[in-house]
Each structure stands twice: as C-alpha cells, then as structure tokens.
C-alpha cells in the first residue's frame, strides 16, 4: 500500500533499511544531507553527494543521472543525526536545462529493499529553481518518518546548503558540481563516428522531444523468444537493431541507447472493464513498448507465440489421445478373453469414446484460445500502420511518404491449418538483416503443384514488385533506392509498376553487360562504405556515392551471370546488409543446379519466401510448419500504383 504524499505530508516508515528512488526526465544530481535535532548540517562531512558518495548508513550515486537509487540504513546513522534530507539539483553544463521548470516533474519514491513502495512524491509546481529538497526522513520520538518537502532554491545548491546551516555553502556546492562535471566527463565515451549515410541515419526526423519518436533499438524481448526450436527454416528472431546516435552534430546524447527518453512512454490503451468470468476485451497496442509501433510489433509477436503454443497444446493432446487409444486397442486384441462374446467390442468402443472425449475437450480449449486471438486480430489489424498492414488495409489509401523508417515491415501472412483464416502478420525488422529469396521454383505445396511454371514465375515477379514497393513506401523518399537486374528482360511485364511509376533511378539492367555494371557499382559501394566505417572516415566518401539503402532485385538468376558476377553477388549477400545493400532474388534453385553446392551458403543466407501459399516457415518456439502467403493487392485495386506514384513524386521533389 503506497502512500502518495503531497507537499508537507508525512508518513511513518515501517522499516529502517530503505531505498530512495529518483526518476527525472533529464540527468539530475541526487544527494542527501544529515542534520541534527534542529536540522543543522555541520559541515561538508554531513553531506553525501557525488564527490563523497558514502556516509555511514547512507550511499548516493556518483554522478548525475535520470534515475537514482539512494541506499539508506537509518539504524546505521550516528545518534546525533535526526534528519536526512534528500536533495536534487540540476547539473551544470551548456545545453542542459537550467531550472526544474524546464523539465518534467521529478518523482521520488521511498521503497523497501525488495522494491515495494512505501511512499511516493512527485515534485510538481517547480519553476526557476535549480536545486530542491525533495524529502526529509526524520526521527520523531524514536520513530522514523518521511515528509514530502519540495522546497526549491532558485540560486541553486549553495542557497540550499546555506539554508541548512552549512557555513561554507558556496564552496561545498562548487565542489559537488565539480564532482558531477568530472563524473559526466568520465562516464561518456566519445560516440562512434557515424559515416554520413550509414544505415542508421535519420536526417528527416524532427527534433527529438521527450515522449515522442520511436526508439532506435528493438524491444527487450526477454524470455518471450527463447532459443529457436529446430525446424525447417527458423524465422529470424526479432532482434534489437543497432543503436543509433540520432543527434548528429548536436550536444552529445547521454541517453541510454535503447531508451530514448527517460520520461515514461504514454500509457498503453486501457482495456474497458470486463464482466467477471469473461476474458478481457482485446485492445490494439496492448503490449510493452515506447511507441505505438513498438507496442503493435510486440503484440503481433505475442499473438504469434500464443497461437503457436495454443496449437502445440492441442496437437499434443490429440496425439496423446490417439496413441492411448491405439495402446488400448492393442491390449484388447492380445487379451484372449476379449474374443468371447461382446467384451472385445465393448472395450474397443470404450477406447474410442475415451479418445473422442479427450479430443473434444482439447478442441474446446483450442477454440477458446483461437476465438480470443481472432478477436485480438480483429482489433489489431485495422489499427496497424502502413508498414505493418496488408494492401487491403484502408491505411494505404491515406498513404503519405514517411519521415522516418518504421521498426519493421510486414512481408506476408502466416497461418496454421487449425484455423486458416487467423492470419498472423510476418514482420521483419528494418533495416533488413538478411536478403530475401522469392522461390519461383516448383515446391512441394499444393498451390505450387496446381500452378504451371510460367504462372509461378510471374507470381514471383509480382511478389517481388509488391515487396519492393512496400520497402520504397515505408522509407523516407531519398533513403531507399531499387536496382533491378533482369538479364533476359523476361520480367518486363511484371516489373511495369516499378518502371512505369518512375521510382527506379535507372531502367532494369539487361544482358551480361548490364548485370556486370550494376554488380560492379554496388560492390564498389559496399566496399567503400565498409572501408569508411572501419577507418572511421565517413567524410572521405566520394560525393557521388548514394548513401541511402539499396535494394537489388535479381530476376532469372543465374541467367546472364558469369562466375565473376556470381562471386560478386555472393559478396553482396554476405557483406551488403551491414552497410545497407540488400538482395531480393527471384530464382528457382534448379536453374542454378550447375553451380552445385557452391551456392548453398547463398540460399541459406536468404529468407526464403514463396509466391504462393507454402508451409515452409517454422516458428522459433515449437517449430510448427507455418503456411506463408505473400501480400497481394486486392483484385482490381490500384493501391500499389497509387502508392508508387506518391513515392515517385516525393523523390522527384527531393532531388530538386
């Protein structure tokens, strides 16, 4: 039971070993002074601060931070101490807030050692003050109590210390701020130099402000995603993207790289209260995360896992029911008594009934879970941003060229045979961590068997074009470009949306010469950027180098490829993703059979997807075979063309 204190209110402390947690929106100095019966502080040795962080029974942090934990052991304090005053101050330095009025209200909590909150206090109503006494712990008739103070001092620490009776207050304040400044200098490593146009650039992002903007790094997935189970082709785990320093050229960003703001994120949408006994109504964005994007991403991965596990429970129950029935039937057969009269028949019937009963109960449990997930899917799908949404989602009709890269991109749908209409979006992190291979070959699936080879190839090109269009659409206009290699021109029809809309800087490369020149261009780019990154010399990149991300679509591999081109392609597949060059291959592995096992590592390094429904993707938890389906624009819809036209217009505007 936490007491939420208001200014002046006090509360009895149930224990003497405490932690005082401080959270603020920007780094603050936290310290404590010890006072006698009259509250007087007898000199510097009665003050715990970053320059002298430990006193008997009291420990504070050594530097300014947005979050602090002060340890207090009231029993270990000297008997002369009757009062412990916790204070906060803004650290010195240019480019920092100079008064508490400029930052969000700091929050302090007194907790037990196990983290349970005893009392909390939010220091509201501060204005020009740069130092403030937050709390007082004081002895009253042998009992320790806490009082919320919130007294601010516009003249800073010196005034506050003087107010508490410290004689050399100004000197002490200066030494505290000096210790803080040196602590800050010590704690900050120079940020790695980011080459201009490296993949983590966000030039189009508006100035970062507290509480807005998605984090640059992924969610802490924790135990939600344990080691992948063995499977046909494990999906990539949602892994944290590399951290980025977003404030290029500005003051150094002291924020934790995976936590962009120290202010708490806006609260997730709350579910309406539910009737007792009913499962909670699903709400879109009902997951952890620092932005709606991240919440939805985590929610979708959560639904993915829940569906995998619910189906695993069902399948294992059904398997068990079957094997138990088999055993019982076997036993009946081998029992000589069952041959007489109807005993055997009865036993067989019983075994079947037992199987049916268990299977029915398992199905009920599964249906309950599926209904819950379907309800969740029904509210989540309409709430998805364009990058996570299918082409049929109305959000694409209101499409506008984004200012920043989303966290992830939906590249298809996954479902299980138990409920084929419950689709889980397959989200991959951006920037792409591995290339994509759209298999235009004949696979084992029914859908592929009923489609002839030419149709499959056409569908593969269509899938690739839709995927390239999505990538172009979710990146800011000047940050993503697409190259196409179509050696024999066999995909000219399918590529028409890309070519016609003008999003390609150069037309698809044809012939062996075209293949060689595109590959040479991209290989040079990867090579140069890599060298620049390694040498830390991003400034020395040639000015004509396009520093945005690049996607290379290769149709008809290995047609038109000589050995040298194949080697270059493998180089791009291996080295490209780290420096922003990605592969999208449309290929039938059979066509490249002549290369033998040499190309196996290439195929393995790519995420294989199919132009028709095919169950070749395994989840990372239990390894079910999930049926993948690519995203298709609805019949007759021109959404793809409209989106590409907007992208092309934005690119033209950007180049002007």
């Amino acid at each position: 039971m936490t007491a939420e204190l208001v200014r002046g209110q006090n509360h009895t402390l149930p224990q003497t070993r405490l932690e005082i947690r401080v959270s603020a929106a920007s780094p603050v100095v936290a310290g404590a002074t010890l006072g006698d019966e009259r509250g007087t502080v007898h000199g510097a040795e009665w003050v715990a601060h970053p320059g002298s962080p430990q006193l008997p029974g009291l420990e504070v942090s050594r530097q300014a931070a947005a979050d602090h934990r002060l340890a207090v052991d009231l029993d270990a304090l000297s008997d002369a101490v009757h009062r412990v005053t916790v204070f906060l101050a803004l650290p010195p330095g240019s480019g920092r807030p100079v008064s508490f009025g400029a930052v969000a209200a700091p929050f302090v909590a007194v907790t037990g050692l196990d983290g349970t909150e005893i009392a909390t206090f939010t220091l509201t109503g501060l204005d020009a003050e740069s130092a403030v006494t937050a709390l007082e712990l004081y002895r009253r008739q042998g009992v320790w109590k806490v009082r919320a103070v919130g007294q601010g001092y516009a003249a800073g620490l010196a005034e506050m210390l003087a107010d508490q009776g410290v004689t050399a207050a100004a000197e002490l304040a200066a030494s505290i701020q000096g210790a803080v400044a040196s602590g800050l200098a010590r704690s900050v490593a120079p940020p790695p130099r980011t080459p201009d146009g490296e993949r983590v650039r966000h030039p189009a992002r508006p100035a970062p402000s507290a509480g807005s903007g998605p984090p640059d790094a992924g969610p802490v997935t924790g135990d939600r995603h344990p080691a992948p189970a063995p499977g046909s082709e494990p999906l990539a785990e949602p892994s944290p993207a590399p951290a980025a320093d977003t404030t290029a050229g500005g003051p150094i960003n002291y924020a934790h790289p995976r936590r962009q703001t120290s202010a708490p994120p806006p609260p997730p949408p709350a579910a309406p209260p539910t009737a007792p006994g009913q499962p909670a109504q699903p709400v879109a964005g009902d997951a952890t995360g620092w932005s709606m994007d991240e919440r939805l991403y985590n929610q979708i991965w959560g639904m993915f896992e829940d569906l995998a596990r619910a189906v695993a429970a069902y399948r294992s129950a059904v398997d068990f029911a079957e094997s138990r029935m088999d055993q019982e039937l076997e036993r009946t057969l081998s029992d000589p008594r069952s041959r007489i009269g109807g005993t055997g028949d009865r036993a067989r019937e019983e075994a079947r009934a037992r199987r049916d009963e268990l299977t029915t109960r398992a199905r009920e449990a599964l249906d309950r879970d599926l209904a819950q997930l379907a309800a969740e899917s029904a509210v989540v799908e309409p709430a998805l941003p364009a990058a996570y949404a299918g082409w049929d989602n109305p959000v694409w009709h209101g499409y506008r060229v984004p200012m920043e890269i989303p966290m992830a991109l939906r590249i298809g749908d996954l479902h299980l045979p138990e409920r084929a209409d419950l689709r889980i979006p397959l989200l991959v992190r951006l920037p792409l961590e591995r290339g994509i291979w759209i298999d235009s070959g004949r696979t084992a699936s029914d859908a592929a068997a009923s489609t002839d080879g030419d149709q499959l190839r056409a569908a593969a090109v269509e899938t690739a074009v839709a995927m390239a269009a999505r990538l172009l659409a979710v990146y800011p206009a000047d940050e993503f470009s697409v190259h196409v290699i179509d050696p024999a021109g066999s995909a000219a029809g399918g590529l028409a949306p890309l070519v016609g809309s003008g999003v390609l800087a150069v037309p698809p490369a044809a012939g062996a010469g075209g293949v060689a020149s595109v590959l040479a261009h991209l290989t040079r780019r990867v090579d140069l950027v890599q060298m620049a990154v390694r040498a830390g010399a991003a400034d020395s990149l040639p000015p004509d180098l396009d520093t945005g991300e690049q996607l290379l679509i290769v149709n008809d591999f290995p047609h038109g490829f000589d050995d040298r081109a194949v080697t270059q392609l493998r180089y791009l597949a291996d080295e490209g993703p780290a420096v922003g060059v990605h592969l999208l291959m449309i290929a039938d592995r059979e066509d490249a059979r002549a290369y033998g096992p040499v190309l196996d590592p290439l195929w393995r390094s790519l995420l294989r997807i199919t132009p028709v429904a095919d169950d070749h993707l395994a989840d990372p938890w239990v390894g079910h075979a999930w049926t993948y389906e690519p995203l298709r624009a609805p019949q007759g819809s021109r959404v793809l063309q409209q989106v590409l036209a907007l992208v092309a217009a934005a690119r033209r505007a950007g180049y002007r």
Partner: protein
Amino acid sequence: MTVNMTKGQAISLQKSDGGTLTSVRMGLGWQAAPRRGLFGSRTREIDLDASAVLFADKQPVDVVFFRHLVSDDGSVKHTGDNLVGGAGSGGDDEAILVDLQRVPVHIDQIVFTVNSFTGQTFQEVQNAFCRIVDETNGQELARYTLDGGGQYTAQIMAKVHRAGSGWQMTALGNPANGRTFQDLMPSILPHL
C-alpha cells in the same frame, strides 16, 4: 495463512472462497552453506535446479527445466537458471509458473523436483525451501522446508494433479539422487 506441509499431505488448490486457482508458482530458494575449516568465510557455490515434469496418464509428455524454459504449450514457465542460490534468505531463487487454466487437457499431473546440479547433498545447503504460491495474489499456499539435511542430491517435491474440475497438490518430499530430472524418472514414476 501458510500450510507447512508434511510428506504425503494433500491440499486442494481451492481458494477459501471456493474459486479455483488459476495460476500457481513453485518457488525454490536456498543459500550456499559456508564451509567449515581454516578458510571459514569461503563458500562453495551450490546450484540447485527446479524442474517440472508434465505427465499424461503416467507418461512424461513435456518437461520444463533450465534447458527448456517454457513448455511447448506455454502453460508452464521457468524463470531461469540460478547457479549460486540467494545471498540472503527469503526470496525464490528459481521459480516455475504454472498457468493451470492453460495446461493442455491431457496433462493430468505435474511433478516438481529439485536437483543439486553441482552434486552437493542437502546437508550442505542452508535455508532451502520449496513453496507453492498463488500467483494471482502472492499468497503462500504451502511451504516445504528442505531440511533434514540428508545425504541426498535430489528431492521429488510435490505434484499438482487434476481432481474433479480443479487441481490438487500433494506434497511428496521424497529424497532421491540425481543430477537432473532425467535421473529421477524411476523414482518419480511410483508417485504418479
């Protein structure tokens, strides 16, 4: 209101208000025993492991332990391996969470075991306990102290099993020897 259980005692996992439990946690806590002798302050690390074996009709179907932290169906979760035990007394050092509502219908018994992975017997472990907590409100339902300090490296702690529409827990407290739950299988089977 904690029940200190003795061997073989069964308690029904029904709440006092008649509702059934939905989520329980098996917590395991221990402290490394200080070694006597010249270097008295030195302690040896003791790694106890909590495991849960899921049975359907006396056949092991799934197991949750430090190498497989979540059962395939997601109903049983291990909070993670602790290799050294607790510094102070009190808290759970390893815990296994069971969402009883989500346990697949064919699973009818879940057996909890504790093994000493590093091979020390329970004589060398201090303040070791196993407890069952109602996860929804944190109330401790049952506690089993691993005292006695016998020459054993494992203990079959307790089982929760279906009874009617709800679940029941039976304290087993049976000593055994083994490094992981696999070694215990022969000793578990008689308790099913």
